[in-house]
């Protein structure tokens, strides 16, 4: 009787052990077998439409800029050729974080107006493109807006001098269009500017 009871108890415990043991089993793999799964990582990258796919290794060096130092006493000008006629328009420059014109810059803007107006007398459809630019300081989206405000200030000066606003186009290049890359005040000042470019 006692023997039978003990046997039943052992069997019962075995059943419980089997069920409980399954839930806490921590050996998932046996060494020496094949991998439990093989997964490709190409599901995304392989399908990208593009070019120059590569892994960049540590030996690649940074491309150097092709820009050169300013040599013309800090004066920047844009030369536009209209049917063989050359028009040189001097850029206006701005203070750090500013988009207002100082008196001497206002004079440059008026000189530009005079040259453009004279050219427009011969070429009625001529438009002027004002390109706003910034130095490298500040975040880029803000700099694109700052460059645009500078271009708008230059536009307002032209309009105030008598130009038809419909003959003026504006764009901002933010910090993407530096004319120099030296880390000094002269270079930064040169980059804070609006360029005047004639569009035939």
């Amino acid at each position: 009787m006692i023997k039978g009871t003990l046997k039943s108890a052992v069997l019962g415990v075995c059943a419980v052990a089997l069920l409980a043991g399954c839930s806490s089993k921590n050996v998932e793999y046996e060494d020496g077998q094949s991998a439990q799964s093989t997964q490709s990582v190409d599901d995304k990258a392989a399908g990208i439409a593009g070019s120059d796919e590569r892994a960049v290794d540590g030996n690649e060096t940074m491309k150097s800029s092709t820009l050169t130092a300013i040599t013309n006493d800090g004066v920047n000008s844009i030369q536009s050729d209209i049917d063989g006629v050359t028009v040189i328009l001097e850029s206006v420059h701005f203070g750090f974080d500013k988009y207002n014109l100082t008196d001497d810059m206002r004079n440059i803007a008026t000189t530009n107006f005079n040259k453009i107006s004279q050219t427009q007398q011969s070429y009625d459809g001529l438009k002027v493109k004002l390109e706003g630019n910034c130095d490298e300081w500040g975040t880029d989206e803000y700099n694109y807006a700052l460059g645009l405000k500078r271009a708008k200030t230059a536009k307002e000066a032209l309009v105030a001098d008598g130009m038809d606003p419909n003959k003026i186009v504006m764009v901002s290049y933010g910090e993407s269009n530096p004319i120099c890359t030296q880390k000094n005040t002269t270079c930064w000042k040169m980059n804070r500017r609006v360029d005047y470019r004639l569009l035939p």
Partner: protein
Amino acid sequence: MIRSVFLFFIIFYNTIFAIDARMEIIKNKSALPKIVTAVSSDSINIANEYQKKIVQIIRKDLEVSGHFENIELDITNHFDDIPQYQALRNQNIDLYLVVQVQNNLQNGLKVNMKLYDVNSNNIVLHRAYTTSSAVRYPFLSHKIAIEVNNYLKAPAIDWMDKFVIFSRYLDSKTSEIVVSDYTLTYQKVVVKGGLNIFPKWASKEQKEFYYTTYNYLKPTLMKQNLFTSESKKILSSDGMIVCSDVSSDGSKLVLTMAPNSQPDIYVYDTISNLKTRVTTYDGIDVGGSFVENDSKIVFVSDRLRYPNIFAKRINSKGVERLVYHGKNNSQCSTYGDYIVYSSRETDNEFGDNTFNLYLISTYSDYARRLTTTGKNQFPKFSANGESILFIKNETNKSSLGITRINYNKNFYFPLKSGKLQSIDW
């Protein structure tokens, strides 16, 4: 009989209450679990050059996760060798990861990995990963690191497997848009020629992206399919146009536009094609992000005569100032109640300036500085808000930065050529 039963109970007890070494690592260890990542000595020769690179990225991923302590040991084993558990335990190693690299197809790789739990003398993971092009090896590493992290049931690091999209300046008025992994090791150019900037994923699926091109008469917002390269014009604007945020369902965009040469924030509905002007200040309003279920916009404005962070409900007039620190806060990103912004901390027209990142809450006084040196800009929260991606520029060096907020650590991945213009993930 009694002895048999006693023996049985011993076995039964160990089975029922078997220690799950994985959970013990988490519960009992106040320090991070120590892991050794080893390269097997029997990797195929041609694939040898990739072995070290793959293991380097795995180690970096584990470090960036903040959930492991990498231990470097000089171990020379074949892939199928049983680890010397006792020797590893003597060094307090918890996990042993071994990686074997083989050729796959013509130009591809196959990586076999085994993870051993040193404390329980068991192999706990055995996986293989393949790619048809060896240059995609960083994704092999990321998959392995994610798998190891998941095994430990640590907070997810799935973001490591996602793409980053960035634009970089190559020269004056010239930039290209590139898709990469988060370490900038894998790269593929998706837009080139002319000036193409401010790429922004159209959704978390990362199948399409927006960007601004200057290759037309006016600055134009484009939408491009990553896999077909099919692109279409969305909007053009005088002066500038930038997509700075996308709503959670992808249907609305926050734009900075200047249709009257005045930069302002707009919300554009891509389904109805309607534009809603959000700001009307005649200075600079840029860089908007959706918050509060896309009902409110956080943005940068110079309405106090210097750039700072403000918020405004769409279709309402009131503007709320959010940041009272710093004199030049020119970029921000939002996640829930949190804002991260870039603040210029020096005002030097004649020399280097420092831009640091700050994390604040909109509902409390919580504020934390995340960086200390250099020019740290363009912060972007990850999808789960646990990490922040940003651009760090120091003298002649441009890097992708990642802040792991909960672990108070920053990591940097340099861009080998060009200058980072903007970035999204």
